[in-house]
């Protein structure tokens, strides 16, 4: 009697083992088939979206749309949270097929303004050092909240206040001094990149001798970029992205390279 029960149990275990194996294999095969089919579909639509986005930026370049955005960029007030690129100029609906939508972002459009009403400035030497048109002497400044820690160059826009006198701009951080070189009229850029922290950077001190600086910009960080105002979809829609480098030239003088980035999706 005892032997029969043992044999019966052994058979049951074999059958159970086989059934589990079959179930596992079938589940694996069905899952693989599902992922295979969905992966294939995604790649085609993603490539199509990204191609359309790249075409859009190329057409913008040919039509001078990005140049217009850069040329008509005005200094935003220091308390401006976001600066939008006007949809009347970068109107993607005029270019995209129906049901497509896109957001365009252009790098290095925003700036930190420096004047007597701008926030985050404290005069170190002979206050008041800031006036309606800019700041002079030695003063502390803060950056916009940077989106990543990195080594960035700083560009400053300044004018000479006293003709015939020596002029200079320098940026000081604890233990380091960064000198500026002129790249075109009223535009100065640091000769070496400075290491910035994530978020608002507060340990920055400008020294402007016989110069009035009206704004500065940390080159390349997303916080100094501006974009069109269409909201990105918050559901699981695929958003294609890509970017293009623009060499902006104004009055035959090279200004600085800028990146235009697109985010494109199907509604």
């Amino acid at each position, binding site marked *: 009697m005892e032997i029969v029960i043992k044999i019966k149990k052994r058979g049951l275990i074999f059958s159970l083992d*086989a059934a589990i194996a079959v179930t596992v294999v079938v589940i694996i095969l069905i899952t693989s088939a599902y992922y295979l089919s969905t992966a294939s579909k995604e790649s085609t639509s993603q490539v199509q979206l990204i*191609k359309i986005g790249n075409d859009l930026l*190329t057409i913008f370049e*040919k039509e001078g749309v990005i140049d217009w955005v850069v040329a008509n960029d005005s200094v935003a007030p220091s308390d401006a949270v976001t600066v939008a690129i006007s949809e009347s100029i970068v109107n993607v609906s005029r270019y995209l*097929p129906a049901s497509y939508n896109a957001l365009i972002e252009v790098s290095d459009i925003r700036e930190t303004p420096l004047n007597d009403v701008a926030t985050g400035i404290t005069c170190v030497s002979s206050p008041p050092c800031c006036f309606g048109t800019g700041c002079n002497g030695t003063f502390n400044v803060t950056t916009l909240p940077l989106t990543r820690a990195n080594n960035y160059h700083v560009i400053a826009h300044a004018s000479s206040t006293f003709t015939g006198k020596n002029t200079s701009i320098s940026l000081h951080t604890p233990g380091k001094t960064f000198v500026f070189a002129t790249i075109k009229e009223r535009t100065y850029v640091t000769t070496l990149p400075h290491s910035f922290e994530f978020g608002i950077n507060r340990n920055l001190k400008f020294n402007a001798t016989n110069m009035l600086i009206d704004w500065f910009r940390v080159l390349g960080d997303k916080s100094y970029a501006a974009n069109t105002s269409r909201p990105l979809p918050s559901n699981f829609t695929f958003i294609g992205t890509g970017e293009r480098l623009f060499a902006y030239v104004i009055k035959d003088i090279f200004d600085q390279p800028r990146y235009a980035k697109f985010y494109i999706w199907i509604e």
Partner: protein
Amino acid sequence: MKRGQAVVTDLFIAIAVFIVLVTITTVIWDLYTIRLKMRQEYEDMIVKNLQISDQLVKNPGVPNDWEYVIQQNPDYVDVLGLAFDDRILSSKKVEMFRTNMTNQKVKDILKIGLYNYYFVIKEQNGTPILAKGNNPIGSFNTVNLARLVRYKDRTRIMEFALWK
């Protein structure tokens, strides 16, 4: 139950499970082979279509003045391109492509002998302006790529479809 009966029942179950497993595996294996072949073909069509649409919207073709000679010499074109500048189509090239090239000639130049093609330029609202090739109506195996181009001073959509 006797010992012999238990062994035979177990054997039957094992054989039944084995047959089911082999059948499922064979069917799925076949299905996968077919799918893999279809997918390979589909991917090939996508890659070809991407290359062709890039070639058409970015390049003037080789020789770049082919549109002026093709009426006299249909074999003059080595590489087909419709662009005057990057993403700006030349209306002369498009017109010569549409009216002076047979479908077979286009397929030979683009090296898409196995497939049919359909070329269309549309307004942004989808209204076709001009078309060439065979419309893939009813075809299940079609890869269609839309591109944004400047054509006759307006932004329009150029579509190129490869189908079988």
